[in-house]
């Protein structure tokens, strides 16, 4: 392999590691909130809308989509191989555009709020 050609690996690994750490630290708390089992008032329309109305809230909510989604996309690609799906190029063409679609949708929805 030509070592002068930059590897694409850091591009995939950075979101994988960042997303994995973000999900590890914050996803359990978020899931507890959306079930309504903890602080049910937090998921009322008024509370959610007020939170998503300012740019800092939008940024936080965007983080809850972007970081876990790119982490999951990369891990899903690798795990597909372990589950016996060996068509890596095809899998990559499903998971990464899927993650991109969810990211774009999140941005569009947040800008509409």
């Amino acid at each position, binding site marked *: 392999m030509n070592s002068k050609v930059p590897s694409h690996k850091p591009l995939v690994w950075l979101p994988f*590691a960042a997303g994995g750490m973000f999900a590890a630290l914050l996803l359990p708390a978020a*899931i507890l909130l959306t*079930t309504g089992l903890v602080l*049910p008032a937090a998921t009322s*329309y008024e509370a*959610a809308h007020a939170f*998503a109305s300012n740019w800092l809230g939008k940024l936080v909510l965007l983080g809850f*989509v972007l970081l876990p989604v790119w982490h999951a996309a990369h891990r899903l690609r690798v795990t597909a191989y372990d589950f*016996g799906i060996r068509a890596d190029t095809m899998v990559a063409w499903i998971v990464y555009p899927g993650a991109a679609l969810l990211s774009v949708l999140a941005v569009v*929805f947040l800008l509409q709020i």
Partner: protein
Amino acid sequence: MARRPYPQEVDRFKWWIADPHFNRPFYLDYMARESTCIFIALYAILFVWGLGALASGPEAYAGFIGAMQSTGGVILQLVILAFAVYHTVTWFILAPQGMKPMRMKDGKRVPAGRVVQALFAMWAGATVVTLLLVWVLIP
């Protein structure tokens, strides 16, 4: 005499549950850890659905929250939560192997167990701070 290599047959779909030559508990644990991403992706889809509902207005949002907080929705999220927590635990336990070794002032390496403990403490802190912030921010 010609060498006759023995290529061991491995079922590429069931190797992690069915192959008697493999260390099954180890591979089962590995697959459980890797499978957490399916549930994290699923939760992200639910989350984006919620953002869409929030953008559409109170009625659409009521439909979303109604589904999320119905019995089925809560059960689904508790399953997702179980895998999310499994992701957290395995992620932290593996973290010292995936990062640059941390060193103390005297150059001694910080023991891996200490790094894992610090991460678990961070998790507890992040969860408490998140819930407190949300509680404060509720109008």
